[in-house]
Each structure stands twice: as structure tokens, then as C-alpha cells.
């Protein structure tokens, strides 16, 4: 009888969590910025920008992974630059898996944050203005706290979705045990092996539990923060 859970399973779980957390940490500030631009800024090409941000929702994940490989691979324009200037390697690394996950979950996060920003009463920002608050001050003291439920919901949803990102990760970061073999990749690998049925089932159930937990946590967190915000 094998150890349950096996070191490989624990590795996959740990990696999945690490990749998801890093991807959210990396993309959250950017998602707030993009949500703000999409909600408040008026510029030519806004619709195109909007569509571009949402592209990962409709593209095959493999295609996203491929584009990342072309851009961020060792010989890609951005990848080569990052490597020579900062010594950062993305393709076939955990950081790369996080990048691929971030790109895939970005639209989810932007949508949630944007929705909450649209619900922020501009009148409150005007009131802050008459009380002497400059633009950045208004954003930090009024807008940001009021959109906090949306930011948290976006982050937790992206985190839960990020635990299970498969196509873009395997294409861009490959399936390296201990580096990029996250839960879904381990599950896929187990399914390919003739004796992996039990392992595959366990990993599938684990993914299921994690997803459910993530969504529930998101809902509870949002309710709690709403109450704190006085709504």
C-alpha cells in the first residue's frame, strides 16, 4: 500500500497553491488598474482594449500558452530581454506557470472588480472632493475601500480558478514534477499511467474540494466585508 497522500500528491497540491497565489499577487494591482481604465477612462480603442482583456476567456488555453511561449520563451522578444537584464526565466518554470495562470484568470478578476467599481457612487467621490481630497487621495480613501468586496471576490475566484489551470500551463511551462506539475497536470499524468486510477480519483476529488472551498470562502468574505463597509 502506498502512502496516502504520496509525496507527489503533496507536491502537486503545494505547487498548485503556490502558482495560484503568485498569479493572483502579480495580477491583482494590474486588474484594479485595468478595471479602472475600462470603467472610468474614455479613449479611442477602448472597446478593442476591453475585448483584448477578455480574450483568454474565449481562446483555447493552448493558444494562450503558445503565444506566451513565443513572447516569453528563452528566444522570445520579452523572454530574452528579461533573461539578459534580470536573469528571469519564465518558460518551463514555476514562475512561468504562475504567469500563464495569471493571464488565464485575469479576465475573471477584472470583471469582478469592474462590477464593484461601477457600483461605487460617484457622488461620494464628489463629496470627498469638496472636503479637500485630491484625485489619488480620493481613490485610496473612498473608491478603493468601497470596491473592496469586488476586489476580494475577484481575487478569491481567480485563486480558485488558478488552482486548476491546465492548458496554458502545460503548453508554456510544461509538466515538470516539483516545478510545474500542478494538481490538474498531476491528474492528467495519473490518467495516462495504467496504474494511476486511484491516484487520479483522489486528485480529482481534491480539486473538486478546493474549488468548492474557494467559491464558498469568496462568498463569505464578500458578505463580511460588505457588512464592515456598512451596506
Amino acid at each position, binding site marked *: 500500500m502506498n502512502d496516502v497522500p504520496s509525496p507527489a500528491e503533496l507536491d502537486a497540491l503545494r505547487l498548485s497553491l503556490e502558482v495560484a497565489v503568485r498569479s493572483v499577487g502579480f495580477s491583482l494591482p494590474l486588474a484594479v488598474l485595468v478595471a479602472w481604465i475600462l470603467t472610468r477612462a474614455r479613449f479611442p480603442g477602448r472597446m478593442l482594449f476591453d475585448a483584448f482583456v477578455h480574450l483568454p476567456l474565449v481562446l483555447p488555453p493552448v493558444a494562450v500558452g503558445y503565444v506566451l511561449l513565443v513572447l516569453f520563451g528563452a528566444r522570445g522578444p520579452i523572454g530574452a530581454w528579461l533573461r539578459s537584464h534580470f536573469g528571469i526565466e519564465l518558460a518551463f518554470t514555476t514562475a512561468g506557470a504562475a504567469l500563464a495562470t495569471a493571464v488565464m484568470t485575469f479576465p475573471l478578476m477584472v470583471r469582478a472588480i469592474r462590477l464593484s467599481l461601477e457600483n461605487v457612487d460617484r457622488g461620494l467621490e464628489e463629496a470627498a472632493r*469638496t472636503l479637500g481630497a485630491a484625485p489619488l487621495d480620493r481613490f485610496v480613501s473612498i473608491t478603493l475601500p468601497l470596491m473592496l468586496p469586488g476586489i476580494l471576490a475577484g481575487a478569491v475566484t481567480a485563486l480558485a480558478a488558478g488552482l486548476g489551470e491546465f492548458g496554458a500551463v502545460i503548453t508554456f511551462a510544461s509538466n515538470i514534477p516539483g516545478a510545474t506539475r500542478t494538481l490538474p497536470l498531476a491528474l492528467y499524468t495519473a490518467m495516462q499511467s495504467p496504474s494511476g486510477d486511484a491516484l487520479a480519483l483522489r486528485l480529482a476529488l481534491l480539486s473538486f474540494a478546493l474549488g468548492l472551498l474557494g467559491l464558498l470562502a469568496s462568498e463569505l468574505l464578500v458578505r463580511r466585508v460588505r457588512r464592515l463597509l*456598512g451596506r
Partner: protein
Amino acid sequence: MLQVSVLRTRPGFSLEASFAAPTPGIIALFGRSGSGKTTLINVISGLSVADAGDIRLDGEVLTDTRAGVAVPVERRRIGYVFQDARLFPHLNVTGNLRYGEKRSRAAPQIIGFEEVVALLGLAQLLQRRPRELSGGERQRVALGRALLAQPRLLLLDEPLASIDVARREEVLPYLEALRDQLAIPMVYVSHQFEEVLRLATHVVLLEAGKVLAQGPVNELSLRPELQSIIGPDLVGAVLEGVVTRLDPDSGSADLAVGTGTLQVSLRDVPVGSRVRLQLLARDVILATQPVQGLSVRNALASTVTALSNDDYGAVLVRLDVGGETVLARITQNALRALNLRPGDAVWTLVKAVSTRGHAFRLASGP
């Protein structure tokens, strides 16, 4: 002095308003809904942009489109109490009050936190969230929040509009206290003449984006332009006087107005207080001979100075009563029966009880 002369044109509405009013004091912007009152204070606050014109407060330029000056809203130091209060829902009452205070450290201190809390009766509310407050409490917090930003001008956009009529007394006395105790000029938007009567020192009458008339309340009460807005039943001269005698048992008081004395229905106002009251033109009775055996408390010797038809088939008689002007509204039939002409001497009869609810104390008595 607040001097405003602005133009703002948008599809469907254009505002072209000029007025100058003394400061401190309460300047009432009075007019029907849609007359441009809110647009005008938004332009004064800077939240809306003037297409052309200038705004000066005590000589300092806030907006001057010709010189390209437009002080940003956040640096105007103009407080704004919105119709819907707009308290920050994520902060408690203290947090809301301190918001402007924290951002006004560089400004000259006009009023402190404790003073605002005492003046507006906020001590019991400090830990509450905005959603736990009544409409009147919300407006008082909004007022306090605006005051603590140390404004040199306070704009109030119908602060009572979202409060039940019965609960407006939760706010009105506080507004009177601000007027009488602080030297902060205010612009008060309203479409209720009673609020104007009670609070204002200067009135600007707006209609369809234009200023119809402006001036002190008593002068403005005689203008025909006001009548077209408030309707015939609320027309009446506004007089100011000093309480000389008080009879608490009957709830009446003697008021020295001009060279004469008026007996009015008034309670809880000490001798020596300044009082403003409106004599509704429809309640004023004229007699060509001295009358006897009537319950009317005031029979004042007066002279007819002018006659005009009002827009509702009646006649508005303008009278000189001891140097003050009073309006009486009578029917065409009454005019014919009395055969009144300008210059005629008449008795102006005013029931003391007809002033009830139309008389307000102006500043604190001695």
C-alpha cells in the same frame, strides 16, 4: 461679498445667472424644481464647469474663464451639503466628520471638532454608521463634516428635501444656530418659501436658468416675480421688528415694526429679539373707516400707495404703514365697493393669529 456671473449651456438647459450678495449671511437660491438652482451651486462649488463667467468670494477669484482661472474643487474650501447627505458608508460618524478636518490642516481654523459636535448635537451619534442614522441625523452629520473642512463658504442643496416634514425640526434650529453663531456665509437652495423666510438674509430668485430678482427678503417679498413662483396664497410682505412686550399666557407679543406696533401670535421669544414675519396678503383686511367691535387685534393707519391686478383675478393693494410696506389682496368687487385710489387713507387690519407659523426669531436676543 459673493459675486457670481456665470453661463453654462447644455442641450435642453442653459444657465445664465448673475448675482451679488453680502457675506456673511444665508443667501437663498429660490425657485421651482428645474429652475437651475442645483446647477448654479454646482458651478459655484466647481463640480460643474462654467462655460463663461467669473465667481468671486470676498474679492478672491475662484473662477474667471477670461483669465483662465478655475480653482480645483478640492482647493476651493467650499463646503457642500448634498440633498442626499452622501455620507461615506464605510466610515462611522466620527470618521465622516474627521475626513474633511484631516484635509484642512493648512486652512485657518474656523471651528473645532468638539464645537461642531456640541453645535449640531452629534455626541450620541459618533460611533454609529451612516445607515443607522435617521434622515435628519444624516444631514446634521453632513453639515458637521462640511464645517470641519473649515470652509469659507457653505453650499446647502435642499438639505431638508429628503426628510419628512414633521422631522425637519431636527435640522432647522441647527441651521439657524449656524447662521447666528458662525461667520461662515452660506448659499441655501430651496423651493420652500417658509425655509427662505426663516433662514435667509438675501434671496436670489431663479426661473428657467435666469435670475428674476434678488435682494433682502423683505424687499423681495414685494416683487411680483415672486408671486408667479409661490402662487397667490403665499404672497405677503415680510417685515422685521423687535419684540417689546411678551404675554406668555395668551401667547402673543408686541412687535415694534417701523414706527408702529404690531400684536402677533408668538411664543418662546424673549423681549428684545429680532423677529421676521410675513403678513400674508390674503389675510390682510382693509377698512375705509375706523372699525369697532371686531376681534382683529391690529388696526393700523395706512395709505394706499399702489394698486395692481394680480394674475388670479384679484387686486394687490400696496400700503404704507408707518414707513413699512404691506400688501393686501382683495377682490375686484371689494376694490369697487371701497373705491380705493392711490393716496387714500385706510385702516389695515391684521389678525394676530394670522401670523402664527409665519413669524421667526432672527438672531439670539440679549
